[in-house]
């Protein structure tokens, strides 16, 4: 696991967490709208390279700029739009802390010691077990992949996928993703995704009479397109931690099932947020090891209360015919 525990203070809508939480391998955040799920994921997404000078992997903006773009600018990263936000992670017995000002300046600390960005990167590489050799920064940077529920983000990733198409082809991700995901959620016989004329991503479709069509990815429906782009993104990065906000967005329950199973089979730490009863039902059926369900609830003082449930707890509630999403504030 990449991140052991996390604590957030004065970040976005979270005034403070009542206490730090210790993550499992698969973590599912549930809560009402505006309960802090996205903010929690965004806080995690700053790790391991939060500085403005370094772009997030596969994107043209830094991790902090990405969050600012999702909201109303850099000041929206700090609770109440002024002051300093604080995020602490525990990783391999080290405490990593970021302090973020309302102007978007970031100060990094390791075990209580403030470090300049260069020293921080060298130290974090040691903590993460990455040697300072060719591509080491990219290696560190790719360790955390964040997929927000945002169409502009997907558009940016799609453009980057196009520009890095040879790498994707060489890795075989264009075939794997279609074989392991897309062909399992649609009735069509798709075999691979390919970069066609005018840099348009196309899916190769085989008909029973041996005819072959190339269907533009943008024409196959939002849910499948989102799945395809996100999965290619993850296949290219091969991260250690996947953060996925509103994982069920635009997805049929069948698609969610395939996606969740695919994610679980990867050797990644995962934190997802969901409002979907299908996701919870599925997880109780599969019951992956080391899965924790986190119920997020912001109180009237904007303090984030997080209650931990196990898969068995959730299974008991669902089997008692109670829709857990309806009573999150009362748990």
């Amino acid at each position, binding site marked *: 696991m990449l991140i052991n525990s996390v604590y957030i203070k004065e970040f976005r809508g979270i005034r403070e967490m009542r206490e730090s939480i210790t993550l499992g391998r698969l973590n599912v955040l549930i809560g009402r709208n505006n309960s802090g799920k996205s903010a929690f994921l965004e806080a995690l997404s700053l790790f391991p390279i939060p500085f403005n000078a370094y772009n997030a992997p596969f994107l043209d903006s830094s991790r902090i700029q990405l969050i600012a773009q999702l909201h109303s600018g850099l000041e929206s990263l700090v609770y109440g739009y002024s002051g300093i936000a604080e995020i602490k992670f525990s990783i391999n017995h080290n405490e990593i802390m970021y302090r973020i000002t309302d102007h978007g300046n970031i100060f990094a600390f390791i075990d209580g010691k403030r470090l300049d960005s260069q020293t921080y990167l060298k130290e974090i590489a040691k903590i993460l077990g990455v040697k300072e050799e060719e591509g080491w920064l990219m290696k560190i940077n790719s360790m955390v992949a964040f997929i927000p529920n945002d169409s502009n983000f997907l558009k940016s990733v799609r453009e980057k996928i196009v520009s890095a198409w040879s790498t994707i082809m060489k890795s075989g991700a264009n075939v794997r993703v279609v074989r392991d995901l897309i062909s399992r959620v649609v009735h069509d016989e798709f075999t691979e995704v390919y970069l066609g004329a005018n840099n348009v991503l196309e899916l190769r479709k085989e008909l029973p009479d041996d005819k072959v069509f190339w269907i533009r990815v943008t024409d196959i429906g939002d849910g499948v397109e989102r799945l395809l782009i996100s999965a290619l993104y993850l296949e290219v990065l091969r991260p250690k931690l996947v953060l996925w906000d509103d994982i069920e967005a635009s997805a049929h329950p069948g698609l969610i099932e395939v996606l969740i199973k695919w994610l679980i089979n990867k050797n990644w730490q995962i934190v997802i947020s969901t409002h979907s009863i299908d996701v919870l039902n599925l997880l109780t059926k599969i019951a992956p090891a080391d899965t924790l369900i986190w119920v997020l609830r912001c109180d009237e003082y904007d303090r984030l209360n997080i209650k931990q449930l196990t898969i068995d707890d959730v299974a008991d*509630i*669902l089997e008692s015919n*109670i829709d857990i999403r*309806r*009573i999150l504030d009362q748990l």
Partner: protein
Amino acid sequence: MILSHTPTKREIVSFVVFGDGRYDFRVLKAICEKFNGAKELVSPQLQGAKGLTNSLRSVAKLLDILRINVEKTKFVILIDKEHIGDIKQMKKKITEFFISESIKEDVQKQFFKFKILRGSKKTTLYIIVMGYNKCIEENISHLIEKIYGERVAPTRQSIREFLRRKGINFEDLIRRASQKALNEAFGNVVELLKEIDR
């Protein structure tokens, strides 16, 4: 009064578990709207519970997991008579989940109130039985007769056809009912809501 699936307030007055499903939810919701006040009843079920045992199980699980003060919260099971059997059987099933004490039994109205205890949690449980012989359609049919003077077979299909002919839905039917007609057709529900509203 308000009946919803998701609480809109931090303080919840009552939780309702339906022994059947959406149909009963719509009827209770419409009757609630005839009562003034902003008190909230919440039905957090995934679907109808299909029977008394499953309904009691839902109440028991709610009691186990809720961190709110359940002593001030009331729990209601609204269920068709066909699922109940006799009163003795009903009480026996309750004891499978709770230690219980009967507070009020109105067999005529089919209104039952219990003090129940589960672990350290104490609360009030109402069991409101719908239908005179079988199900809630009998109450609706009775209400139609009170309002329109017309006898409609107590089946979902006949009631749907009647409402379609009149160009109204369940909610309209209940909205049009006088207090007297409601008292006659849904006396136990009216009594329940009055108790909750106190």
